[in-house]
């Protein structure tokens, strides 16, 4: 699994590619933890290139979602690949996580979250 970090205006985009599974889930937590440490609290987690996600990967997504919320930040998941979308749907994670169909929608959501300072 690889996570490419880039900036989109004021927000960080973490683009995840590959398998998000037990052996790589910790890496997602570590990378997102580093962003939080550096005070990057509004993040787009792009999941279109995730080829497979197991329960550990889903657990990691939920853990980082909670970690951003705790710091009054927000993480939005965008463009989940088919395999990710299915896991999100079955477990209802799509109702717990912030989801956006496009990066533009994600930016709108984060702008609103940052402005209102609300914990999403």
């Amino acid at each position: 699994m690889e996570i490419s970090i880039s900036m989109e205006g004021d927000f960080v985009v973490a683009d995840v590619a590959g398998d998000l599974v037990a052996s790589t889930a910790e890496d997602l937590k570590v990378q997102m933890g580093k962003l939080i440490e550096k005070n990057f609290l509004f993040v787009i987690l792009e999941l279109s290139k995730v080829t497979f996600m197991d329960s550990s990967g889903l657990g990691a997504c939920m853990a980082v979602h909670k970690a951003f919320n705790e710091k009054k930040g927000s993480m939005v998941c965008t463009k989940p690949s088919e395999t990710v979308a299915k896991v999100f749907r079955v477990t209802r994670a799509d109702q717990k996580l912030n989801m956006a169909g496009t990066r533009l929608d994600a930016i709108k959501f984060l702008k609103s979250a940052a402005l209102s300072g609300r914990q999403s």
Partner: protein
Amino acid sequence: MRPDSGNVNILVADDDPLVREMIAMILQDEGYAVDTAENGVDALKKFGSGNVIGLIVSDMNMPEMDGLGLIRTIRDTGDDVPIIILTGNSEITTAIQALKTGASDYILKDENIQDTIGIAVEKAIEKHFLKKQNQQLLEELARRNDKLEHEKALAQKVQKNILPRELCFPGFEVGSFYRPSDKIGGDFFDAWENSGKIHFLIGDVSGHSTSSALIMAVSKGILQSLGHTLSEPAEIIRTANRMICDIVSDSGMFLTLLYGTFDRATDALSIVSAGHNPVFMARGKDVTRITSTGSVLGWDPEDTWDTTVTFFAPGASLVLYTDGLTEVRNAEGQEFGEERLEALIGDCICTGTAINSIVQHAETFCSNDFPDDLTLFIMKRMPA
């Protein structure tokens, strides 16, 4: 801790008294304790005398026993004390032979020996020290691994006892298959009968490590306890979720769970699926799916679940499983998938055959490479 030269005894063996004493003097000046021997036999005697010798510097050509004989005899005993060979320019081939026999290094008897001997000895001692240290660390690692494996084996036994051994209910045929990906896992299942209702459950804790096994054990205890006091699956799940949320806290860990009851008085099957993969109700070739009715357990203490109520017809089978079965992949990266499982279910007549057939197909499909825990649990209602 590095070796201190003052703590190392060196034995110098050379039949030439002048060379012998000169080398002894150089090494004493470096801070080493030095003993000397006139030949190989003398050296062997002193080596075995009880004084711990940390290094031997030996000439090659000596009467009675030469350097090669000395190396060979010491190595034959299994001792790995560093041995440095002293050799002339014309004896390089012999020196190489000495290295092959077990010498640690060789140095030339030339005008630079005063400088080279000290360096060679220091290097040989350090290398020997590091080798010993490495060996000790490897032994420690092996000991710890053994202990860990022993603990895992013990945990496996305990976990095996947590899971039901045999499930028998009048009018039902029940079969199960459980295989953790490692010795212990996060999958679990169970069933019991209470006040005219058969309660059954299958769960899968995220991950498949020790923490998963721990949460699995606690969750199963909670559910079993609630199942004996409450009767509605949705209520049981709601109460269990609040308790499990406290346990998993913000770790992101969770469990998918399917909890159901079969009411003997009404033939009604009530199922709550907390983010669990679809399960199947099969009657001959007619296979229907029962899908998730809410979120997984452990994320939000305020979550609620809907209940799927259906009729458990005589002759029908309820096939429960965890995603360790459907998510296995073949060499081409394709998933075993729900469709493949569904097709197999339609062909099965009794639970034992169904389980064997499904497991065998999955094993062949993924070449026995199961990265996740696998549980298969089938309840067949006997025909009236």
